[in-house]
């Protein structure tokens, strides 16, 4: 069970610092006791096994107490993004039908702005409430009361590793967010595999800038609790100098990010200047989408020599990670996502439905104890995602080389037809980034009556003097004619989702808005 990570660490090393958050340092014993108290409080208020508990908090010690407390109570932890707007939150709360919502005062206005289902909601727990909640048909408690000393310990209802533990909403590339159902077994199995891949131990100290409501952020928490390590929470990544400084001060051993995290760190942080001040930084891991080769090379140059770079690949539906490229192969297998991690079977399924090796392209599919139970209340989507043989279809197109390393070449739903040619926007983005003139770029297809699609490149230049003519010239020198974007649009930054990934749909909207304005 997931909460055993915390309980084991609390039993073995009760006084060890588990979490550093701003001026606070919390030990494993403290977090375990607080999580027990919360579990008792939830159970006392009638929360039962399998009840959903929506957790709407930014990364904090209270978040961690809540996450493990919910699991100890036998309930289902459903972390929601505290940055959602009322419409987005309304959809997820309606879909989830939580019995409890745990939030901070920062989300009170948001909660007041939506309609809460009075039939299913039994309890609202708020940290330091500022609003008036009298007269509600559900109980409202202060978070502080719920984690204060309780007269008993949580009741351990009959549970097994296949029980639903968490529902994590994923936006995917199209449509409404879907709730990914993960069991205790899914998460525990994947946590152990990741620990092994990264060779994590009790001396590891992880800097966490990714949100815990995102599956990759959550895996940073679980992996470090599994080995009795330490997590340093820094929610101020918009000020990257602050993060790098804290990494040096706390002797952080690991840092993890998505491609935009590294793009930002490389271009607007003193990372390179801190090379000598990061003697403990053992590794940096990257997941959450393809990172351009140029960015990888720049990162290699900026980091201290002893710091290894670990490229990983995964999905919410896989409880976090599927593959890992061992750091010693970083240069040699620059474009690869590595090989499957322990207990994961990763394969390429070609167009004829056969497993392929030898470089034939196909869809990446995976199975193993980490693959989700399914999508919450959406059995049709589950059947589309997991085939009758139990393989999860990632939607990513790629191939496997003769040494077993996987490469992703695009998304199943993202191939554009340009004048009869199949075009993968990622190929063009990769070449554009090699120009070393851009901070980031996204290539999109603009519907065109004649050619099917025209290509537009949204570009964030490093140097303000860069012109469209410069980029056109560069593309004509480095790309086949049909891959040269017909338009280049300059932006100060590309629109991103809440986890920092470039959001293609928002890019299309931003491009259209720019065109309308002009």
């Amino acid at each position, binding site marked *: 069970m997931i909460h055993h990570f915390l309980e084991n660490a609390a039993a073995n090393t009760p006084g060890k610092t588990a979490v550093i958050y701003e001026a606070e340092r919390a030990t494993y014993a403290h977090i375990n006791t607080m999580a027990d108290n919360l579990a008792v409080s939830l159970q006392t208020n009638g929360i039962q096994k399998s009840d959903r508990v929506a957790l709407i908090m930014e990364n904090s010690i209270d978040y961690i107490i809540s996450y493990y407390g919910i699991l100890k109570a036998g309930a289902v932890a459903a972390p929601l993004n505290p*940055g959602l707007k009322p419409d987005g939150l309304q959809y997820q709360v309606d879909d989830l039908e939580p019995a409890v919502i745990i939030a901070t005062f920062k989300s009170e206005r948001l909660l007041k702005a939506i309609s809460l289902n009075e039939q299913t909601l039994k309890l609202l727990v708020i940290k330091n409430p500022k609003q008036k909640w009298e007269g509600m048909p559900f109980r409202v408690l202060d978070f502080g009361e719920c984690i204060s000393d309780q007269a008993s310990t949580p009741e351990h209802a009959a549970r097994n590793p296949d029980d639903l533990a968490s529902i994590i909403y994923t936006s995917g590339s199209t449509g409404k967010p879907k709730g990914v159902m993960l069991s205790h077994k899914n998460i525990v199995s994947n946590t152990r595999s990741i620990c092994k891949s990264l060779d994590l131990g009790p001396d590891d100290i992880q800097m966490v800038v990714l949100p815990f409501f995102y599956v990759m952020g959550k895996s940073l928490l679980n992996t470090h609790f599994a080995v009795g390590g330490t997590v340093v929470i820094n*929610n*101020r*990544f*918009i*000020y*990257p*100098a*602050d993060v790098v400084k804290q990494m040096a001060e706390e002797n952080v051993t690991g840092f993890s990010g998505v491609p*935009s995290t590294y793009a*930002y760190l490389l271009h*607007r*942080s*003193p990372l390179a*200047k801190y090379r000598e001040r990061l003697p403990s930084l053992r590794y940096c891991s990257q997941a959450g989408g393809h990172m351009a080769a140029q960015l990888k090379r720049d990162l290699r140059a900026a980091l201290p020599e002893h710091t290894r770079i670990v490229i990983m690949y995964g999905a919410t539906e896989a409880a976090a990670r599927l593959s890992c490229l061992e750091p010693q192969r970083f240069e040699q297998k620059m474009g690869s996502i590595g090989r499957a991690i322990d207990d994961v079977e990763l394969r390429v399924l070609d167009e004829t439905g056969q497993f392929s090796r030898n470089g034939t392209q196909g869809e990446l599919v995976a199975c193993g104890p980490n693959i989700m139970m399914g999508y919450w209340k959406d059995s049709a989507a589950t059947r589309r995602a997991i085939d009758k043989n139990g393989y999860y279809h990632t939607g990513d197109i790629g191939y496997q080389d003769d040494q077993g390393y996987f490469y992703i070449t695009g998304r199943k739903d993202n191939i554009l037809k340009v004048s009869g040619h199949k075009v993968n926007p990622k190929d063009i983005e990769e070449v554009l980034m090699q120009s070393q003139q851009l*901070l980031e770029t996204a290539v999109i297809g603009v519907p065109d009556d004649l050619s099917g699609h025209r290509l537009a490149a949204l570009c*964030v230049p490093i140097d*303000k003097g860069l012109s469209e003519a410069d980029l056109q010239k560069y593309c004509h020198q480095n790309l086949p004619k049909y891959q040269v974007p017909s338009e280049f649009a300059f932006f*100060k*930054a*590309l*629109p*991103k989702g809440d986890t*920092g990934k470039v959001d293609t749909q928002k890019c299309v909207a931003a491009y259209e808005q720019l065109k309308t304005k002009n």
Partner: protein
Amino acid sequence: MSDVKSTLRQFIVENFLFGDDDGFEDDTSFLEQGIIDSTGMLELITFLEEEFSLQLDDEELIPENLDSLNNLEAFLAKKQAVQQPQ
């Protein structure tokens, strides 16, 4: 309100608050209130560099310098004093 602060306020209200400055005070933290994300921070930095003809050092990108209108105003005054000694 100083011209600098007024220019900064206008930029932030137009670009990040979609014209709605209700509750946006001079000491409101951009970070605490979720007004600016990392994408927005890059926009703000570009704006500061272009509008005030400054070059911001990466080590200066800290909350003490940038995380509210008041902090920004004080930081810009300090930068400009260094760049244009009397």
